[in-house]
């Protein structure tokens, strides 16, 4: 399990910066907005979504699937030591730029050249973005924000566990993307809630996510997770996909 999948419990980190702002420098807003646009224009919304999206009628040249998992793969794929060298939205910028290059929408050379242009004296604040209006693209992105992209699927999948069952969290090999916090591996918890419908993951991961599967809210005692390092009088809950759990 990579360090970026196993952050919970790292010791001796010192005081937390209780920074209440969402963005600390203005450029961060732009990469956030680009990510939301990609989510709202993702190809899977045409074929695998609950709201009735019609991407084929939206005049965008974006023709890829882009979900949270795709964004996260950029940060999770970093060398574990590199993960902490970048601030939150720097990882987004690197991952999203890399995606557009890999998918062939842009080349690294043109991105470098354009970056150099904006770095020339005075250009960053004054050179405008291309003035191209395309309201139908914007409407689809806004529609996505309003209607979302629920992963819940009304298909018959028999859950392996019921409320009250003891489970052990499986140990999984390192993967490019996971939804299992590393510190939970091998730990024993109790099914507290079995969610009524299975959840899809929109694409397949090497650790078993993908097709609709049951999700459970699992309760862990703090002493089970942290032993003698646990604080008194707290419990920990997490929503976990069935593929990560086995009977204990």
């Amino acid at each position, binding site marked *: 399990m990579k360090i970026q999948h196993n952050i919970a419990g790292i010791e001796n980190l010192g005081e*937390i910066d209780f920074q209440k702002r969402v963005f600390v420098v203005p450029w961060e807003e732009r990469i956030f907005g680009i990510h939301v646009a990609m989510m709202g224009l993702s190809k899977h919304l045409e074929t695998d979504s609950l709201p009735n999206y019609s991407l084929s009628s939206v005049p965008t*040249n974006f023709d890829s699937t882009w979900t949270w998992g795709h964004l996260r793969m950029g940060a999770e794929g970093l060398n574990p030591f590199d993960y902490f060298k970048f601030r939150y939205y720097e990882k987004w910028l690197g991952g999203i730029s890399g995606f557009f290059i890999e998918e062939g929408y*842009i080349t690294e050379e043109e991105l470098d050249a354009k970056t150099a242009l904006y770095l020339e004296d005075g250009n960053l604040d004054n050179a405008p973005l291309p003035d191209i209006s395309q309201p139908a693209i914007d409407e689809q992105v806004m529609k996505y924000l309003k209607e*979302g992209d629920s992963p819940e699927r009304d298909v018959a999948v028999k859950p392996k566990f019921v409320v009250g069952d003891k489970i052990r969290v499986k140990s999984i090999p390192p993967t490019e993307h996971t*939804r299992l916090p590393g510190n939970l591996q091998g730990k024993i918890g109790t099914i507290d809630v079995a969610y009524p419908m299975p959840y899809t993951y929109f694409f397949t991961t090497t650790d078993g996510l993908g097709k609709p599967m049951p999700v459970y809210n699992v309760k862990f005692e703090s002493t089970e997770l942290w032993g003698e390092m646990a604080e008194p009088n707290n419990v*920990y809950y997490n929503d976990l996909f069935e593929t990560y759990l086995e009977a204990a």
Partner: protein
Amino acid sequence: MGEQSFVPSNIMTKYDGFNYDRDREIYSAARVRALESLLIEKGIISGETVDKVLNYFETEMGPFNGAKIVAKAWTDPAFKAQLLEDCNAAVSNIGLPVGMSGAEGEHMKVVENTAEVHNIVICTLCSCYPWPTLGLPPYWFKDPTFRARAAREPRAVLTEFGVELPETTEIKLWDSSAQIRWFVLPAQPEGTEGMSEAELAALITPEAMMGVALVPSPSAA
């Protein structure tokens, strides 16, 4: 770190590892501008898409919605019961902007703070956050230091953030690793009975709705 810090020192005050020099920030600013510019030129997004997204979070999807929900729950017991039972159904028809079950709010759950139980919402893997009701996550929530420490030592983190709970109060941590998005119904402070929903909403912060702050009594302010 560089001698010239781009982020003012009063913004990033503690762990300094994510506070970069001016050149690095200017490079990122140019890089993201270059990327946005190319995406517009190539017909992937429009010249207005990013501005419209940002405006949407300023006006429609923000913590002001969550504050109204909490204030209503404090003054309307039937609504509170429904909110705790089925958040999405409860918030769909109370005069909030359209889209309360939209992106990152498709499946929301609310947990209530009482004298016996104090809830904290965390995301150790990333930054899962209920966008429609609370907007976008503040930096502390995304910070690896918070994510690492809150999971194991929530009481110490609360103390650091100025929240002292009785030892008898149980802390429940809600970590978000699937698509359920959690937020906290904070306890109503003493001395606010009889206040209007709008007056109450003004007291409620995103931090209180994530469980790392209490809602202060107005007389204590």
